[in-house]
Each structure stands twice: as C-alpha cells, then as structure tokens.
C-alpha cells in the first residue's frame, strides 16, 4: 500500500513532466549555465581550473536541484493539490517518497548531461571508474533530494519560500557536497583513488539512510497544521 501510493505519486509526476518537459529543460539548461559561469569565473593562466571540475559539477547540481524542487512544489501549490494528496487515506510519508523518487530521477537525468560536459570542458577523466562515479552521484543525489523534498514540501505554505529553501537546505546538505566533491575528485585523479572514493560513498550511503528515515518520521507532523 505504501509503495503503491509512492509509485502512483511518482508516476503522476512523471506523466505531467513528460508532457511539458518544462522543469526538465529549464533545469538542465540552468545546470549547464552554472557550469559555464564557474568555468569562466575560476580561471588560471587563461584556462578553466581543471581541479575544480568535481566541485563545479556538484555545485551546479545543488543549485539546479534547488530550483527544480521549488518549481515542482510550486505546481502542487497552484491547484492546492498537495492538500488533496494529504487527504488521501494513506500513510502520508508515502507521498513524500513518491515526490522524492521523482526529484531523484530528474536530477539523475541532469547529471547524465553534466558529467560528459564537465569531462569535456575540464578534461576530467570521467571514464576512469564509471560504476563508482555513478554510485557516488546516486547516493549524493538521494541525500540532497531527501532533505530538499522534505523542506520544499514543508515550505509550500510558508512566506518567502523561494529564498527560504536554499537558506535551510544548503547548511544541512554540506556533508553531501563535501563527500560528493571529495569522492568525485578522488576518481578524477590521474590514478583514481578508489579506496578513498569508496569511503566517501559509504559516508553518503549512511547519510542517506539517516536523513531519509528522519524525513519519513517528520513528514506528517510538519505537513499538518
């Protein structure tokens, strides 16, 4: 029942998104612009700073993710459909999981575009350990989205929600950024430090478990008045 509801919510979000593709296109484009802006802002001897590749990629994903979260929940707010979801006779955290899966999927698609771009612009060896890289990105995205989805949902009824989301989200997701960037940077070394990368990945996985659990716990009290 729980998973069924989560699946229904996610499928509904996907159906809507596939039709207009608005959030997808705008988020991808925004992430690409971010990467370019950073590439031009951080230069050394007239060329983009290659060591910064990992950091730039993760920051762009974080910024783009924040926008995507805002837009997704703005849609729900528009017809007050989030309320309709809350009225369903289901365990409410299932709604959270459904939304979370949708956001993770969206961000993974964005990353699928960004990683080759970063590899291209910064001469980063993205093919070094592709599975490990994917795992890092996956766990990091889940961690970021777990907290982001909860905060974006609870901010739907708040004032100044556009600026509140980054204010609340970024401090909490700093471990994700640190682990993600350090792990990715370890993989981008000429000789990839796989042990180090695996350790960062383990940390991210642990973060995911803790924060998804915490979000499931707090979703209902936060969403009810």
């Amino acid at each position, binding site marked *: *029942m729980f998973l069924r509801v989560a699946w229904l919510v996610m499928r509904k979000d996907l159906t*809507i998104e596939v039709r*207009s593709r608005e959030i997808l296109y705008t988020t991808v484009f925004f992430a690409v612009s971010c990467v370019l802006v950073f590439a031009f802002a951080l230069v050394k001897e007239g060329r983009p700073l290659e060591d910064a590749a990992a950091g730039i990629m993760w920051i762009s994903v974080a910024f783009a993710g924040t926008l995507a979260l805002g837009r997704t929940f703005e849609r729900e707010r528009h*017809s*007050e459909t989030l*309320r309709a979801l809350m009225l*369903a*006779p*289901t365990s*409410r955290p299932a709604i959270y999981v459904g939304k979370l899966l949708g956001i993770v999927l969206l961000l993974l698609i964005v990353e699928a575009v960004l990683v080759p771009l970063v590899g291209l612009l910064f001469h980063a060896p993205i093919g070094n350990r592709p599975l490990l890289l994917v795992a890092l990105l996956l766990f990091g995205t889940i961690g970021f989205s777990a907290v982001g989805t909860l905060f974006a949902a609870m901010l739907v009824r708040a004032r100044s929600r556009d600026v509140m989301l980054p204010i609340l989200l970024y401090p909490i997701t700093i471990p994700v950024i640190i682990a993600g960037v350090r792990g990715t940077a370890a993989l981008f070394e000429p000789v990839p430090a796989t042990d180090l990368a695996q350790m960062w990945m383990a940390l991210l996985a642990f973060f995911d478990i803790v924060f998804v659990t915490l979000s499931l716990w707090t979703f209902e009290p936060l969403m009810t008045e």
Partner: protein
Amino acid sequence: MSSTRARPAFAAKGIDSVSFDFTEVAVRDVSRHYGRRRALARVSIACRAGEVLGLLGPNGAGKSTLLSILATLLSPSTGEVRYGTKTAQEAGPALRSCLGFLSHDLHLYPELTARENLRFFAQLYGVQSVDARVGSALDRAGLTARSGELVSSFSRGMRQRLALERALIHEPRLLLLDEPFTGLDDASVAALVSRLGELRAGGRIIVVVTHDLDVAERLLDKVAVLKEGRLVAFDDAHGRIREHYRAHVQELKN
C-alpha cells in the same frame, strides 16, 4: 449507530470495503486561532446521514476554516470533532476514505486529462474496479466526450463538475463543499442541486458553504450562521433561511 472497528489502512487491499463508517458528525466547542487572531470561537453543530447542512455568513466568518477542520486538514485549537463516536485522531487514516472535500481550488491537475485525474485519485483511494468507476463518473459529469483532453482547456463549469466527481470517486460518507455554486450558470446549478439531492437520499452527510440564498432554500435541511468566528444561529432551514440571513448577515452592511 456506527461501526467502530477501524482496520489499519495498510492492511486493506482496497479501502473501498467499509472499515470505518459513521452516521453523524458532531462539532463540539471547536475554536481555532492563529496567534492573536481568532478564526472560530466555540462552535458546536451536528449533522446526520441524509441531511444537508449549510454554513452561511459573511466573508471571513470562519466558514472555510470550519470546513477545513471537518476535513481534518486543520486541527482545532480547542474542542473536538466526532465522526460517529471517534475523533479524527482515534479513527486514523481510514477516516479519510469517508471524507470527500470539494474546495474552491478544485484540486485538479491541469496538466493531466480528465480521465487521468479521476484515475489517479481513484487509485489513490484504493477504489476497486477503477475503470468502471471512472467511466460512470465521467458520464455523470457529462465529460465522456472530452475525457482525453487536458483539464487546463476546460471551462470553470466543466472543471467544477469534474472536481465534484473527483471528490465523490471513493463514495465518501461525508461530503464537504466550499462554495460549489460560485461561477456556475443556472443549468449547472440546477444539475448540482439535483445531484446533491440524490446523494442526500442515498444517506450521505453533506455540508455546504454557500452565499447563494436561492440554492440554500432549495437544498438545505439545516443552517448554521457564522459571524466573526462565532455561531450566531443553528436551526432547521425550512423557510427560515432568509430570516436568519437578514438578521445576521445583512446587519454588517449597515
């Protein structure tokens, strides 16, 4: 009176089967405030199966707030609401399968088609035989021909009809309607009134917020008049509506 065995939501394959039901809703001494602002002050009303209760009053009187509390979207600051013998807390998520809420915002996804909207909510509520139910709902709303079109292309009236069917897709015991007649033409109003009459005959409990006096006179069994959060009249409706309205609502205009 009412069966009080509530099966936990996750145990039921489809919540269609009656796991929780009631025949009366009682609001007891309910207040709701936001900081210093009082939205409702010690309101007590009741409504039983086969009755239509109207909430009347000027804007800002707290009608929508009371409706939201009945829908379990808000919790009262003090007081309680009992559905049969249980409060919302005691009844748990199963209570929501007995509630249908039609708000001003309609709760429809404009980016989905009419059929998709109904299907989504039917599945969410665990309705058995989804396709059949959705088909007949579309029929009743007169939207079968346009079931494959996006809701964003519908007129207000069409959306309202669809929204009503959405609120009823799981055949709830208690139906809550927030100003459902606003913006409808006469034909639509008549259709809605007759539909609500059918539902009343079927034993539902219906609570309606409305400004429309003609409709109120045709439809309501009981009337509750709110003013500035307070209940100023709670009475049988027949023939008394205009009197109440004039006494309590009109005086604000002076």
